[in-house]
């Protein structure tokens, strides 16, 4: 069935609209459900959440220690939501010689309530296939050329544990207040395809 079935299916827009009609008619989906869900997701599940956790960890050694033991509790401590099926948040600490990078080879799971919705490149089949086997090469192609001495740790999100990387604080930002520090923490750095050391003060 893969070679000759060449009729064009209806557009994704039309198909999505059909599903909406079905869920309203047959499953009592409230009229405003999608709009309200979208607003909530766009407001609440944002990269700034993880960035605040990272900035706090940089400035509060006790929070950092708690976060590395129990990421879920550390997220909740700052008031961030964790959906039921994300049972665990594990925070992976980068060091000068250890670099962590996250992937989901089987689908595209992420800790989206904490680091924001996954970027398209993370869902790319090329990323899913290659980063586990060619980690150093893929990171270099993406602009992160790690020294040969850096140990790379790849984390495949195959269960209900969600990961986030705790990047290293850029030396130039020593002494900054936590809210200013949070502004330099990117989503890519919490997935582990960039590091922040080069950030200027």
């Amino acid at each position, binding site marked *: *069935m*893969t070679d000759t079935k060449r009729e*064009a*299916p*209806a557009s*994704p*827009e*039309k*198909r*999505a*609209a*059909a*599903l*909406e*009609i*079905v*869920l309203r008619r*047959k*499953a009592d*989906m409230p009229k405003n*459900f*999608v709009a309200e*869900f*979208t607003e909530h*997701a766009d407001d609440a599940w944002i990269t700034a959440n993880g960035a605040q956790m990272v900035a706090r960890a940089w400035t509060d050694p006790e929070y950092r220690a708690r976060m590395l033991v129990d990421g879920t509790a550390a997220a909740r401590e700052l008031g961030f939501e964790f959906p039921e*099926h994300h*049972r*665990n948040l*594990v925070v992976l600490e980068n060091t000068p010689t250890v670099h962590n990078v996250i992937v989901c080879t*089987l*689908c595209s799971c992420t800790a989206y309530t904490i680091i924001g919705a996954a*970027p*398209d*490149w993370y869902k*790319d*089949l*090329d*990323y*899913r*296939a*290659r*980063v*586990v*086997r060619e*980690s*150093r090469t*893929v990171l270099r*192609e*993406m602009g992160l050329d790690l020294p040969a001495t850096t*140990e*790379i*740790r*790849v*984390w*495949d*999100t*195959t*269960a*209900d*544990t969600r990961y986030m990387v705790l990047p290293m604080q850029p030396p130039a930002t020593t002494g900054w207040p936590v809210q200013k520090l949070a502004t330099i923490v990117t989503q890519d750095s919490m997935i582990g395809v960039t590091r922040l050391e080069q950030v200027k003060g």
Partner: protein
Amino acid sequence: MDGLHDLGGKQGFGRVKYPSAPQNESWRPLVRGLHAFAIESHIYNMDEFRHAIERMTPRHYISAPYFERHLTAIATLLIEKGIATREELESLVDGEFPLSGPSGPGRLPFAPQSFAIGETVRVKNEFVSGHVRVPAYIRGKTGTIVHVSTPTPFPDAAGHNMPAEIEPTYDVRFRARDLWPDTSDEALNHVAVFQSYLEKVESA
């Protein structure tokens, strides 16, 4: 299932499109919201949803954008759950509405075992036709447990709407060179593995 979705370590792929180009799929938020409603209403669970994506025909899976995979799984599950019919969906779109293929059998978790951080474990050499969360690249391989998680429902059962006992998952550390001898970059590869997928390694 040994589907094409199990991509880890597959060769022939190219450069990651990074940074991502701007997208113009205006229907993304709608698909995301419909899925959220279906989950919240317990029409299906996350494992059933993932399995419905895996069951897409291979050509469709490989070529469809991410959120088209989602909408295909939602549609498939609405039909399988008796909420819609294929004819109804085709009539609503006035055209073809590609769906996922049929499901293999699910299975219940194995008897509880116990593994400790630092313990060497082997991933069972199992072939599962239904939903399963062992990527092929660790099948039969040996690694070390580095973290134990809160128990979660066994996906091979949950993905088929069977009673899914909760069980721990373990972050297991492998060496890339053991997974793909001579043909990988050097790395420590960690995979989150459900307890039922693991077996003890006899100590020498």
